């Protein structure tokens, strides 16, 4: 009996029709393509975009040049030097180089930063013409969003 049923199912192409009906249903279903340049997916808060340095409300840099990020970085992206300005309690970076082309966006630097100075931005378009433009230097590390992007290593261009 089972054999007969199997034969009938095969002969009347039941499996074929079943497959076709599934694809037909999806034909009228929802389309998920995001039309990228016009529509950009909203990014989650923990999104790992380009790294940037932040300032506090008063506009003072948060970075104290403790080099914790430089030490933890598995791929040695950072090159940091700092001095203590006259009359200041904390160190300030005089050099803060970040090599985007080495970065693997693991986020260890963000986690170890004691002052939350280095954080991920939401900038994810990171292409540049030339490898040297992927090296960021100090003033640009404070840029944000579109500016950061359009200044992909403006320091080198100057």
């Amino acid at each position, binding site marked *: 009996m089972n054999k007969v049923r199997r034969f009938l199912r095969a002969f009347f192409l039941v499996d074929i029709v*079943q497959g076709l009906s599934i*694809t037909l249903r*999806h034909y009228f279903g929802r389309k998920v393509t995001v039309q990228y340049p016009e529509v950009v997916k909203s990014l989650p*808060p*923990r999104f790992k975009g380009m790294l940037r340095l932040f300032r506090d409300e008063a506009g003072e840099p948060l970075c104290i040049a403790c080099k914790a990020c430089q030490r933890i970085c*598995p791929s040695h992206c950072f090159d940091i030097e700092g001095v203590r300005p006259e009359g200041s309690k904390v160190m300030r970076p005089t050099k803060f180089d970040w090599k985007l082309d080495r970065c693997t*966006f*693991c*986020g260890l630097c963000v*986690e170890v930063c004691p002052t939350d100075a280095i954080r991920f931005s939401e900038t994810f378009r990171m292409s540049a013409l030339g490898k040297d433009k992927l090296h960021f230097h100090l003033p640009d590390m404070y840029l944000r969003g579109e500016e950061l992007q359009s200044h992909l290593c403006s320091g080198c261009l100057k």
Partner: protein
Amino acid sequence: MASKAFKEIDLNMGPQHPSTHGVLRLKVSIDNEVVLHVEPVLGYLHRGMEKLWESQTYHQIIPLTDRLDYLASLSNNLGYCLTVEKLAGIEVPKRAQYIRVILAELQRLASHLAWIGFMANDVGAMTVLLYGFEARESFLDIFETYAGGRLTIHGMRLGGVPFDLDETVIGMIRKVLETTPKWIADIEGLLTDNRIWRHRTEGIGIIPQSDALENGLTGPCLRAAGMAWDLRRDLPYSSYEDFDFDIPVRTASDVLDRYFVRMEEMRQSLRIVRQALDRLPAGEHIAKVPRTLRIPPGEIYHSIEAPKGELGFFIRSNGTDKPERVKMRSPSFINLMSLEQMCKGNLFSDIVGVLGSLDIVLGEIDK
């Protein structure tokens, strides 16, 4: 004999062939369409991970493990973290263990969904690829919301997980628990009964149970050979003993059975995630682990049930903050060894199907 009249053709599949899953190269010799010999040639993606690990601290290695099996990076994280924790005697909080289970099972689902897509695409059903990927997309969205990454997630740390599960993520996971069974049903509707799929998978790539064990085959491939080998149950880690789940086992050990095992595993994974979410204990999500973790000399081997099979890490410490030696037992690497035995005597077209059914990832094979 007549076979003398046929000329044996040597074919070179890969490393740029559409269905060798990356940069695998297969030296195939065929007689007409019948496969006589298959020899995998590896190393096109070899990055010297194990050498590199010897120069990194225990914390720094975690993001590098992401790059092994890049379709299941959280599983790699978990395997590595558990090994180090076992070696260093770090106690992981219960909540962190549960979150790890949730992440690992979601990762297993994502990996299997990608697998069914690739596998079906290798056999010619290209729509399943897109369905699998669309279903997988929602898992990647969860990972992105949770840890900011989609593929190389870096979603675990020594001693726990980097973030607590918040309401947004839990909501997303609950939603995925609803939608995924529908995708699985659609994929099964397209494949399970389909006569062509049956033709292409039934009785193909058979490896007898004894040989499977002998060759060190693990994971779904071994379960399809009739052995209920699942480290989540046999040697429970990260609180897997708290959950109730079945281990799908089939006996024919062909491509079709590997498909059935993985499809059922996805349902079981959903079950585990649901249980873990319901019983998520309160508490810390990460234990205090010193930033420079120095582990006294010792050696340990620990393995987990990764989506591809048994993923093991052997670590020898030497008292510094860097390991003396980390050896990874990559399931794909050992599983691939059985390819020749599975393919011999089958047709040329079956190589891609069998290769697909092994679910290999070259990042893991070549390390």
